[in-house]
């Protein structure tokens, strides 16, 4: 879309309006009691599960998976699979005991299980680190969506959307969140599925598209004449001979040869080649020319393509990358603080399990759809490869169909869904990070004697600061794919909270010192690896995933970019070894703690928590 799509803007405004109204309506019911209390009593398991799914399905799921499937192909399927499978592990190891323990947040659990304020503080720190990493991709989603809908520059989208959502939270607009999140879930699943059915009807079936790609040694080709502006230092990789017109005189590097100056206004014919535009320039391609930066069909449709392979250039390292990614996502889900918080809406441990089962069904259905966008996008919106905006495929592809009015409606639907996706997740994260900041840092550490008014004020300041920080950081993550950013948040959660939860609930021998050491060792080393990759990582080539730390050994670089494969075992091992060494510290009431974690409510040991 080159002009402003008014229908999409109306749809987005509607989403904001309905969210606000629902929030106010829910607050009226909630009034004096906590929403969790109300939710656990008045909300059925389906609505409860929808709320959990609603908070979980972020910009990464809604836009990122589709964009990355389009860009990298088969390997990306591990992301949605991991996002769903993570809930299986959450169900197997964490859901029921955590609920039975009665801990509301992870810091609560850390404090209660190990009876340590110091550990609580560390847990609070990791809640904030993970929350922050998770906010970045939401910001990127916001920037990309407004770019697509308003044709606004990336930074403007980040600033506007970030400010609107932050203000909403600061002013208290995220009350009654269970109702709001449940609504957002239904909106998202509607917005992803309905367009897919119409698009499949229009473009032809899913399997046929895949089979065409699987046997194609070729990259996709432009469907119509197109002129594209490229920034300086853009890599363009062509997998087939190409002809284009150069807009103006500029410096160009072919493969790794010495840069040369090419004149503007000329037509150039090149073989399959990798170009680097050292100056910004404008290229015009005729219809039928190969699209740069798109992997060939066979590479795209098979495992160990550019996502896992290009950065490392060795099949066995691709395998390593794949495994590390799978570990990060699966175990990370089961340790995500803002997701675990939602389980408090269940009345007991058994219900927590049942709700998780419904959640698994819901997100399992959801994740069938985004890859279809990616597959269709490759065939029908290939210019996104050249533009470097595959993350926008969900927002752009519906515009390719006829009649135009239908295309406009579908565009509005997907824009609304995308907005719901980053709005729900960003708001949730912002509230939990600000809660941790104002409650734990300010209210408990800095000024325990603070009055109610001061604390309320502190919450708002915290939300303002956290939102502002996310906006500023969000401006710099344009070059990373949404899912890559999310993957990093998962890797940190997998290396810190997941081992603490699994061992803490199932192993009596885990001591305070052991748990603390493991969380610190795994969490900090994973964070360090990721920060190094973020700062020094550079796209080694046009198609690669942009995370090669230049000048390092490929094995080392892979282990830095996807740390989970070593950081998760490192965390587990540290916990076990240190706990063994500090055996004397196992609390006397450990049996009692185990009883609290695992005794079925049916025994009547715990009657209702909350009496009306």
């Amino acid at each position, binding site marked *: 879309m080159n002009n402003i799509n008014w229908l999409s803007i109306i749809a987005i405004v509607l989403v904001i309006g309905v969210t606000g109204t629902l929030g106010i309506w829910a*607050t009226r019911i*909630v009034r004096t*009691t*906590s*929403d969790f*209390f109300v939710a656990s009593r008045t909300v059925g398991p389906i609505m409860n599960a929808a709320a959990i799914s609603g908070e979980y399905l972020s910009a990464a799921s809604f836009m990122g998976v589709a964009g990355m499937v389009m860009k990298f192909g*088969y390997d990306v*399927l591990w992301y949605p699979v991991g996002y*769903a499978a993570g*809930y*299986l592990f959450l*169900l*197997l190891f964490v859901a029921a005991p955590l609920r039975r323990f*009665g801990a*509301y*947040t992870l810091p*609560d659990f850390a*404090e*209660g299980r190990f009876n340590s304020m110091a550990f609580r503080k560390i847990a609070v720190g990791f809640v904030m680190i993970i929350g922050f990493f998770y906010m970045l991709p939401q910001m990127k989603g916001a920037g990309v969506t407004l770019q697509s809908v308003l044709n606004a520059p990336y930074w403007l989208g980040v600033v506007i959307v970030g400010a609107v959502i932050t203000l909403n939270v600061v002013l*208290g607009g*995220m009350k009654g*969140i*269970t109702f709001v999140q449940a609504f957002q879930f239904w909106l998202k699943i509607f917005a992803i599925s309905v367009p897919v059915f119409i698009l499949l009807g229009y473009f032809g079936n899913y399997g046929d598209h895949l*089979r065409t790609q*699987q046997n194609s040694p070729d990259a996709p080709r432009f469907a119509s004449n197109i002129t594209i502006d490229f920034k300086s230092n853009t890599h363009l990789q062509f997998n087939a001979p190409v002809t284009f017109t150069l807009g103006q005189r500029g410096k160009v590097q072919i493969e790794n040869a010495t840069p040369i100056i090419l004149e503007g206004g000329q037509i150039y014919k090149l073989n399959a080649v990798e170009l680097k535009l050292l100056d910004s320039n404008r290229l015009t391609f005729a219809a039928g020319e190969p699209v740069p930066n798109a992997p060939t069909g066979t590479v795209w449709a098979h*495992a160990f393509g550019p996502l896992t392979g290009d950065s490392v250039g060795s099949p066995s390292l691709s*395998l390593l990358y794949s*495994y590390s990614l*799978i570990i990060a996502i699966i175990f990370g889900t089961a340790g995500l603080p803002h997701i675990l918080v939602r389980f*408090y809406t269940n009345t007991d441990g058994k219900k927590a*399990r*049942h709700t*998780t089962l419904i959640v*698994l069904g819901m997100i*399992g*259905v959801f*994740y069938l759809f985004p*890859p279809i966008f990616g597959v269709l996008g490759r065939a029908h919106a290939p210019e996104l490869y050249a533009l470097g905006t595959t993350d926008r495929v969900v927002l752009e592809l519906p515009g390719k169909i006829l009649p135009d009015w239908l295309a406009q409606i579908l565009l509005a639907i997907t824009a609304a869904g995308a907005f719901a996706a980053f709005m729900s997740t960003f708001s949730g994260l912002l*509230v939990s990070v600000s*809660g941790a900041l104002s*409650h734990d840092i300010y209210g408990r550490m800095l000024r325990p004697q603070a009055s109610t*008014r001061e*604390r*309320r004020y502190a919450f*708002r300041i915290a939300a303002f600061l956290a939102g502002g920080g996310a906006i500023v950081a969000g401006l710099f993550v344009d070059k990373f794919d949404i899912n890559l950013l999310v993957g990093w948040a998962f890797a940190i959660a997998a290396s810190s909270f997941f081992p603490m939860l699994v061992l803490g609930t*199932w192993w009596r021998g885990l001591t305070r010192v052991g748990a603390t050491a493991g969380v610190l060792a795994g969490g900090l080393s994973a964070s360090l690896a990721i920060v190094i990759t973020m700062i020094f990582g550079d796209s080694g080539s046009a198609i690669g995933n942009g995370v090669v730390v230049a000048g390092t050994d490929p094995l080392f670089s892979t282990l830095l970019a996807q740390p989970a494969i070593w950081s998760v075992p490192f965390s587990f091992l540290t916990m076990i070894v240190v706990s063994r060494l500090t055996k004397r510290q196992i609390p*006397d*009431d450990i*049996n*009692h703690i185990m009883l*609290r974690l*695992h*005794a*079925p409510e*049916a*025994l009547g040991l*715990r*009657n*209702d928590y909350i*009496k009306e």
Partner: protein
Amino acid sequence: MALIRRPLNNNEGSSSKADSELPNLLSQSGSYSIDLENENEEFNEIAGDYNYPLVAELERNQAIDNEQTLQEVAEQTTYGAVFLNDLIRRQRALSVSVAVTFLIIILSLPLLNFWLRDLVSFELFGFPVSWLFLAILIYPLIWLLAFYFVSTADKYEEEFTNLVE
């Protein structure tokens, strides 16, 4: 906060010791609840259901009663404790076996892709097999494993409850 700050490790102590500490505990929680209440209002107003102190506080008072009951069960009904340990073991074995089953399936897929590239690009129902599995079939598979786990875990707990009662 939801959790009792003070460890209730009266395990070795006699029940009279536990009794004598009870008023002390309650009074502690009483004085603590006053400033929590203030926090509650504040959080309720701002953070909606992210406000935990209120629930936590209600639960806390309740938890003290529960802790006492639990404590008694842990101390007095040796059978109960044995049964509970047995339950934990069974639940853990169940979780681990479902997890291992799933991990074997999912972690063998990259190896299949690695060694048997041609086999997994074989077509089934008009899809390449590897896509069909990873993009579609895996979701019902995950759900079935989860369903098996949930129903078995429920069954174990029911048996346990019947035994103890």
